[in-house]
Every structure is written in structure tokens, then in C-alpha cells.
């Protein structure tokens, strides 16, 4: 078989190189010859041509776009460009190549060498701060659009917001917060005037053009914005920069990392805002590092490069105090009521307010409030585990945690569920829980029940003989009556009670249920976009009043048979109830990256086996307070391998099933909706079987039972009569003033249009677009035969006639 494939490929390549087909066919076995002819036919198949005007217009737009992109250009560092690396690096690279070619040996050693090489190269480049070969060329790549504000504007107040250098923190802090003055801004201005250079910063995934007066905004998730010098907020897409006088903020379920020139980083969690007050992050050999930030709200985590000098400063101001560190890792939380919590992971941080300073060391935290000195630090405790007891005393992962009125419990966790707990040690060593967050419902904590409703009380129902508690959040179909067959989904409470989350008529569930929490991005009349998902809004959709773009909402509804997501309820949720569900392609698995979203897994994360890079998966989980996304489940879902063909047409016969002249196989798996008779208009979903048969997976009558929905159809025009268009295998369409027509409709035109079906069965036709216009070809009359030569036979040449007919 392999030989035949090789032979076929050799001939195909000759054909593609321009050799005549006849020559390429010589000596080929019959089957391969047939395939080659087939391939030749495919190569000459009549491919659709582009509209030249459209292509030209698109090209013009593309070039404009490219020109705009040229400014914030991310450059490949010259470290990797040919002809520049020093001899020792070339030698090392050759040895590395050799190692990599030894498969059995390469493995971990090669990876170790690569990382070592990159590490030392980055250190070496950072230490020597080599001006690279063509600095003028590199300079031209600097100065991204958002970093254009002159340094003199550092203290300029921003309309509608407190001045970058004052208010907020100043009003409550102890006055030690430095102000930016002209002398201080002079140094960075001089530094900025130096020739630009490309820096490769350790721990940064992308090399960026930076200088000590700018910080990169990276690892962006969700909505991240930077405030420009004119006070406007501009969204940052993949990467951006920020400098002194600017602010960065994140929306719900969003996060970003600021990376400074010396390698220090500040990671912003969801719903956070930070201003860069002073920024001159010089490398140790070049001077002091000065980074002064003000965190107005939200959460941040700071990793600070250690500096063994007394002149460097890394300071995070908050409305309730300031934290100063030299080289450490710490977190800052600022709540809307202006309380600040400093938690130290490594090293030491001095927290100051009202001229009182406490030193917080690794493992400790302190809380500061406006107008008060910081609390004495106490040790923090956090972890994740299974709940085995709830109440005043919770037992999580076998450890006791006390709760009180200040404990925040998110997600109504029950015994058996997995939670994250964060807290601190009390004066007697007891563990006190500050927050308990549901991470994952225990599988055996949920139930699904289908049965007849025999009692409908205010707080409990009886379904299939079981007592069901009705929670206040339960979504209940209001058409359910006593005797209805219903499906109940819910959780099993700690006391064994069955608590319903949703109850729907079993035979009328319009599709698969969905439920997720996301950020509202676009609100339109008929559809909202929530966390990149388009959600249809119908008349029955219940929404909380006052929802605005940017709000965090919980959406429940049904995935309809046509693939659309229809909301039954959208409600505002508490900002801490941050659960997510999304679908995307697996980009990497260590760390996990799906659809551009990086998330973590835990021992308890349920991951479907055999998932690999490139697969389409559904991920569900929770967003931790620090912005970390933790997956609870990762399920493989089919990609585009299960394409379904949708037909809309007239039922011509039902035994066998024929729709619009097409014979459809109907088997025991085919589902039917509505009363269907011959002559009815139906919606059919068809799966192509491997043997070529067309098997209907569902047939639905298009009438009032179809419910609200729209679909696109295409049809051939068989006649036009006044304002009526007659279509093949389709009811006539009556044109009115509301229907716009793009193109000229005439007989044999192929048109496409959208129809929407209302609940009362009314069909509304949308705009009509002519997608194909018949071409009238005038066939010229055959030329008159030449007059026969004198004396010839009037019957002509018989052989010629046979050839033409043959």
C-alpha cells in the first residue's frame, strides 16, 4: 500500500509540475490511474472567485490596520537573530542540537540546558544592557501609543478621578506618601532620552521593548483597561504598557500582570484598580529602583526583586495604609469599605498607617482601616479540602475552623463539597475562617428526579413520592400543575433534604439546560453577549432590573436544538460568586490553557481521559479571590466532526419520509415535535451516516409549537407576480414595505432570507438577498455550412458524422 501511495504521489507531483496527464498515467495500476485522473479533475474544479472590488477594499483596510499596529510593535529580540550571537553561544547551540538529536538522552537534560541558557542569556543581557546592533531601528519600535504622555503630565489631575498623586490614600494615610515633584520627574525624563534597547526580562513570556519608566501589562484575562493621559480608558488586548501617571483597572473575572523593568511584578486580580504614581525601575548596576503604586480597590499580588541597597523603594499605598518592601512576595486586598489587608508570602513588609508601622513577615497578615493604626499581625491559614461539618465550627480537610459574623461563606457549600478556606490564627491558636468558598459540589450531593407532581406546597412539593424543598432561587416552570410530569434538578442538603434548583415539565424541556456566571459585555434588544457567549433574550426571559454592561450575572436557560442559547433567567449575582463555564480548544495542558484562558487544576478536578492539545473541551470551575481560575471539570466535546445538515421544507410523504423531494431515513432515534402531516412545513436535522444515508435526528413542525426562533433558508424563485414571490418547494412570500430586497429577483434567482416564527405561528420574513442570478447565455447560431465543392457527394463524409455523434 505504501508503495502505491508513493508511486501515486510521484505522479501527482509530476502532474502538478505541469507534465501532461497522459504521460503521468503511463504505467500506473488501474486504480491509481483512476485516482490521478480524479485528482486532475479536482485541481481544475471551478472554484468560486472573489469579488475583486471586495478584495481591493479589504486590502486597503488591512494596510490601514497594519499601519496602526506598527506602533505598539512587539519585537523579537535580536538575541535570536542570525549572525549576532557570540562564538561561545554558537558552540553551545551546536552542542544543544547534538544533544537534542539523541532522543533517548535528550529529554530532561536538553530541557535543563535550554532553560539554563535562556536564564543566563537574559541575566547577561540585563547586566550588560547591551545596545544592540541597530539602535535607531529599535528606537523606532518604542513608544507604544498608550505611553505617549509626556512626563510633565504626571501630576495632572484626571477629569472625574482623584489626581494620581493625591486624594484617597493621602487623605487617610500618615503623610509619608511621597509626592511627585519636578526634581523627581527629571531623572526619568533623562533616562527616557537615552537610546532605546530591547530587554529580555526573566519571567516574562514575551520579550518586550521596555525601559525603566514603563511597565508591561501582560497575562491579560477578561477586560483590562489603562487610563491614558487624557483621562480616557482604553482596553488592552494582548499586551500593553503603562507608566507613571497612568492607571490600570480590571473588570470582573479579569486579571493582568504588570511587569517592571527590574523583573518585579504586580498581578491584579478581578475588579481591581491601581495607579502608577512613580516608576523608575532601574537595574541594580544603573541606580535605584523606585516603584510607587496606589491600589484603590481590589486585589494584587506583588513579587519584588530583592535589592540590597537603601535607596530602592517598592511601595503600595492604599486608602488605609501603605506597604513597603525590598524583596518579597505579598498580597494586598482593598475592600470597597476601604479596609486593606496585607498578606505576606515571602520576606517582610512594613505596613504603615497614621505613623504607626507593623512589620508583617512571611505567613502573616494584617488588616488596616482608614483612620486607625494597622492591626498587630497574625498568622494566616488557608487551604482547600472536603467539608465534613458545617455550623459554627466547620471541619475542612479534617481541620476545625471557627466562624463568626465576619466570616464570608460563598456558594452555600454543604457536607461533602470541596471548598477553599482562608483565615487566620486567633490569640489562642484557634483557626478562624475569614472566607469559605465553594469550589465544587460533591457529585453525590446532587440529584435529578423525574416523576409526577402530587403536591405543590409553598416550600415543599412532592414529586414521585419524594418531598422536595423549594429554594428561593429555584427556577420553576409556571405551567406545572398537579399531575404534571416534571424533572427536578437540585442538591442534597446536609440533613438529607432534597433541595430543588430547577423544576421543568419533563416532556416540554425545550433543550439542554445550561447555567453559568459571566460578565455582561453587550446588551442588545434580542440578544446579550455574556462572557463571549451570545445569549438570546425572549419574552419569557426574566432579568434583574438595572443590569448593565460589565455586570456579573448568572444565566440559566436552554440550549435549543438549533444550537442557540436561550436565557430563561438572568440575574445579578454577588461579585464573589464567580463560577465559570466555557468551551474552547486546548492550547496547552501544562499549564492548562483553553481558548486563551489559563487555569489551574487540583487533585479533585475531574478531567476526561485522552484529552489532547487541539481538542474542544468544556471547562467548569470557580474563580478564586486572587483571580486564579480553578477547574472543577474538563470534558471533551465533539468539534466540527458532528456537523448537522438542517433542512426546512414541505413534507411530501411520510411513508417513506420525503421532504422537498429528499428521501430521509427515520429510525427509532428520530425525535418528533408537534403534529406533522403531509404538506406541513418542518425543520429537519439530518446526520450523514458513513454509508451515505441521510438519517433524521429530529423533525419539528414549524408552527406555534416551534416557539420563537429564526432560521435562514435559501430557495429558487420559480415566478414573480406583483408583490408575490413564488418559490420552489416553499410557500409564496408576500413582499411588503418592511421587507428589503438586495438584488433583483427574477425567475431562477436563488434567494436567501431569514424567517422568524412567533408563538402564534405567524411567520415573519426578513430581508431578502439574491445570492445567485441566472446568467443568460445567448447561443450564437451555427455558421452556415460551406457550399459543397462542385461535383462532391451531397451526403458528406460519413466518417466525420460518426465521429461527431459518437
Amino acid at each position, binding site marked *: 500500500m505504501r508503495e502505491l501511495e508513493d508511486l501515486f*504521489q510521484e505522479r501527482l507531483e509530476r502532474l502538478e509540475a505541469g507534465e501532461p496527464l497522459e504521460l503521468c498515467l503511463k504505467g500506473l495500476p488501474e486504480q491509481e490511474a483512476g485516482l490521478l485522473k480524479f485528482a486532475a479533475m479536482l485541481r481544475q474544479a471551478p472554484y468560486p472567485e472573489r469579488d475583486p472590488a471586495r478584495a481591493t477594499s479589504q486590502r486597503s483596510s488591512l494596510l490601514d490596520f497594519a499601519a496602526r*499596529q*506598527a506602533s505598539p510593535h*512587539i519585537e523579537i529580540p535580536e538575541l535570536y537573530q542570525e549572525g549576532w550571537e557570540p562564538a561561545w553561544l554558537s558552540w553551545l547551540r551546536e552542542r544543544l542540537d547534538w544533544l537534542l538529536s539523541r532522543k533517548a538522552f535528550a529529554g530532561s537534560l536538553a530541557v535543563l540546558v535550554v532553560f539554563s541558557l535562556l536564564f543566563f542569556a537574559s541575566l547577561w543581557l540585563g547586566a550588560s544592557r547591551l545596545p544592540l546592533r541597530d539602535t535607531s531601528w529599535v528606537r523606532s519600535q518604542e513608544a507604544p501609543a498608550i505611553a505617549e504622555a509626556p512626563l510633565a503630565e504626571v501630576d495632572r489631575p484626571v477629569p472625574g478621578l482623584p489626581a494620581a498623586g493625591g486624594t484617597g490614600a493621602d487623605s487617610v494615610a500618615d503623610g509619608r506618601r511621597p509626592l511627585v515633584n519636578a526634581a523627581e520627574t527629571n531623572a526619568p525624563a533623562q533616562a527616557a532620552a537615552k537610546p532605546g534597547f530591547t530587554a529580555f526580562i526573566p519571567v516574562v513570556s514575551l520579550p518586550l521593548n521596555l525601559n525603566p519608566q514603563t511597565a508591561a501589562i501582560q497575562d491579560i484575562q477578561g477586560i483590562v483597561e489603562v487610563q491614558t493621559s487624557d483621562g480616557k480608558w482604553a482596553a488592552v488586548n494582548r499586551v500593553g504598557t503603562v507608566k507613571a501617571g497612568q492607571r490600570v483597572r480590571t473588570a470582573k473575572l479579569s486579571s493582568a500582570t504588570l511587569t517592571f523593568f527590574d523583573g518585579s511584578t504586580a498581578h491584579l486580580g478581578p475588579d481591581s484598580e491601581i495607579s502608577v504614581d512613580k516608576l523608575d525601575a532601574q537595574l541594580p548596576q544603573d541606580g535605584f529602583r523606585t516603584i510607587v503604586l496606589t491600589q484603590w480597590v481590589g486585589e494584587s499580588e506583588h513579587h519584588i526583586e530583592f535589592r540590597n541597597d537603601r535607596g530602592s523603594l517598592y511601595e503600595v499605598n492604599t486608602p488605609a495604609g501603605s506597604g513597603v518592601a525590598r524583596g518579597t512576595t505579598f498580597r494586598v486586598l482593598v475592600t470597597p469599605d476601604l479596609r486593606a489587608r496585607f498578606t505576606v508570602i515571602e520576606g517582610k513588609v512594613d505596613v504603615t498607617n497614621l505613623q504607626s508601622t507593623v512589620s508583617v513577615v512571611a505567613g502573616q497578615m494584617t488588616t488596616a482601616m482608614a483612620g486607625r493604626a494597622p492591626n498587630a499581625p497574625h498568622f494566616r491559614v488557608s487551604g482547600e479540602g472536603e467539608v465534613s461539618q458545617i455550623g459554627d465550627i466547620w471541619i475542612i480537610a479534617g481541620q476545625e475552623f471557627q466562624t463568626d459574623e465576619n466570616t464570608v461563606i460563598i456558594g452555600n457549600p454543604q457536607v461533602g463539597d470541596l471548598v477553599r478556606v482562608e483565615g487566620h490564627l486567633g490569640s489562642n491558636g484557634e483557626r478562624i475562617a475569614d472566607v469559605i468558598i465553594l469550589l465544587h459540589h460533591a457529585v453525590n450531593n446532587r440529584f435529578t428526579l423525574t416523576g409526577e407532581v402530587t403536591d405543590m406546597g409553598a416550600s415543599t412539593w412532592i414529586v414521585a413520592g419524594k418531598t422536595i424543598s423549594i429554594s428561593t432561587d429555584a427556577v420553576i416552570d409556571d405551567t406545572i400543575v398537579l399531575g404534571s410530569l416534571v424533572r427536578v434538578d437540585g442538591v442534597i442538603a446536609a440533613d438529607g433534604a432534597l433541595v430543588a434548583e430547577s423544576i421543568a415539565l419533563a416532556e416540554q424541556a425545550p433543550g439542554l439546560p445550561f447555567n453559568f456566571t459571566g460578565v455582561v459585555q453587550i446588551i442588545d434588544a434580542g440578544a446579550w453577549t455574556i462572557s463571549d457567549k451570545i445569549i438570546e433574550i425572549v419574552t419569557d426571559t426574566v432579568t434583574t432590573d438595572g443590569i448593565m454592561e460589565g455586570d456579573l450575572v448568572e444565566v440559566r436557560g436552554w440550549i435549543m436544538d438549533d444550537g442557540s442559547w436561550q436565557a430563561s433567567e438572568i440575574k445579578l449575582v454577588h461579585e464573589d460568586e464567580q463560577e465559570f463555564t466555557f468551551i474552547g480548544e486546548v492550547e496547552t495542558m501544562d499549564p492548562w490553557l483553553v481558548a486563551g484562558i489559563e487555569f489551574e487544576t487540583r487533585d479533585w478536578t475531574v478531567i476526561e481521559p485522552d484529552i489532547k492539545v487541539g481538542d474542544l473541551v468544556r471547562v467548569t470551575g470557580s474563580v478564586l479571590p486572587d483571580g486564579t481560575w480553578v477547574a472543577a471539570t474538563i470534558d471533551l466535546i465533539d*468539534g466540527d466532526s458532528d456537523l448537522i445538515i438542517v433542512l426546512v421544507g414541505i413534507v411530501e410523504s411520510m411513508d417513506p419520509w420525503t421532504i422537498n423531494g429528499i428521501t430521509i431515513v427515520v429510525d427509532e432515534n428520530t425525535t418528533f415535535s408537534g403534529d406533522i402531516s403531509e404538506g406541513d412545513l418542518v425543520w429537519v436535522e439530518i446526520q450523514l451516516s458513513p454509508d451515505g444515508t441521510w438519517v433524521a435526528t429530529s423533525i419539528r413542525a414549524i408552527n406555534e409549537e416551534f416557539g420563537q426562533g429564526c432560521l435562514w433558508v435559501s430557495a429558487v424563485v420559480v415566478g414573480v407576480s406583483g408583490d408575490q414571490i413564488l418559490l*420552489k418547494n416553499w410557500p409564496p412570500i408576500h413582499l411588503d414595505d418592511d421587507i428589503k430586497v438586495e438584488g433583483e429577483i427574477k425567475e431562477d434567482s436563488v434567494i436567501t432570507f431569514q424567517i422568524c416564527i412567533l408563538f402564534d405561528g405567524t411567520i415573519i420574513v426578513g430581508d431578502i438577498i439574491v*445570492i445567485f442570478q441566472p446568467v443568460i447565455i445567448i447561443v450564437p447560431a451555427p455558421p452556415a455550412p460551406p457550399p459543397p465543392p462542385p461535383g462532391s457527394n451531397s451526403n458528406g463524409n460519413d466518417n466525420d458524422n460518426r465521429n461527431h455523434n459518437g
Partner: protein
Amino acid sequence: MLDLSDAELVKRAQGGDVNAVGALYDRYQARIFRYVQSRVFDGRLAEDLTGEIFMRMVINLPSYRATGAPFASWLYRIARNLVVDHHRKEGNFMSLPIEYVANMHDGRQHNPAPVVERQLEMERIQLALERIDEMQREVIRLRFLVGLSLQEVAETLDKTVAAVKSLQHRGLLALRVALKLQ
């Protein structure tokens, strides 16, 4: 500009040369459109997606590195991902003009005009393509509709040349059978 290799054009485009971006567009736009059209069955949509693919090309050019894989493969990966995204967002539905479907199925062709015949021939091939294995289909599309080389297809699909050769062979066999069944 026309005589420059892909690698040279890419390098210039990465350096901010807008004309190089234009040259890359000129070189690939027709084939990219053909590929997209073969997967979405909708000329207007294919036009839009083609434009978006080149936008993504511009956005991602700075991170593209010439590692030996042809630029064409990189570009077709962008195209492929975008089309997959599109199908995902649209709920995996493939919408075909109903009349063409009917014609394809029972073999009736009502309009003898050559233009229509050509279009129907293309539709016939596309419908038959939908009946064969997904990976074989992708190889056939990239090899014969788009005109990529075996090497380029292998890079695009992350497969070996030998695997692509095999998929091509089996795909052609399957496609021929599928066309005969229509």
C-alpha cells in the same frame, strides 16, 4: 516586492513595512478565500472571514518566528482555527441552500447554463467532501482546493508527510466513492 520570498516578506512586515503586508495579502488572499468558502458554503461569510484571517495575521506576525515551518502553514492554521471557531459559535450547523441539496440528492439539474453547471459541480464536490472522514477531507481541501504542497499540509495539520500522503490517497478514494453515490 513580488519576487521576495515569504520569509523575506514576513521579516519586512514584522519590521513595520506595510507594503510587505500587502504583498502577503496579494499572494494568499485568493487561496485563503477558496479554503474558507469550501468550509462555510457562504460567499459573503467567506469574504468576511478572509478579512478577519488577515487581520489576525497582522496581529500575530510579531510573534511568528521562522522555525522551518512554511509561512503558508502558519497562515492556514489561523484560517483553520477561525473557521472552527465560527462553526463552534454557530452551533456546529452547516447551512446548505436547500434547493441545491435537493438537486444534489436526486440528480436533477434544472438550469443548463454553464455557470450554474460549474457551480453545481463545485457544490457536488463539497457535499461529497462532507461525507468523508474529517481529516481526509481537510487534506483534500488543502491539497487540491487550496493548492498547498504535501509538506505545507503536514505542517498545517501537525502531521508527518507520510501520514498526509496516506490521508490524501484514502481521501481521494473515499471522495470518488462519495461522488458516485450522489
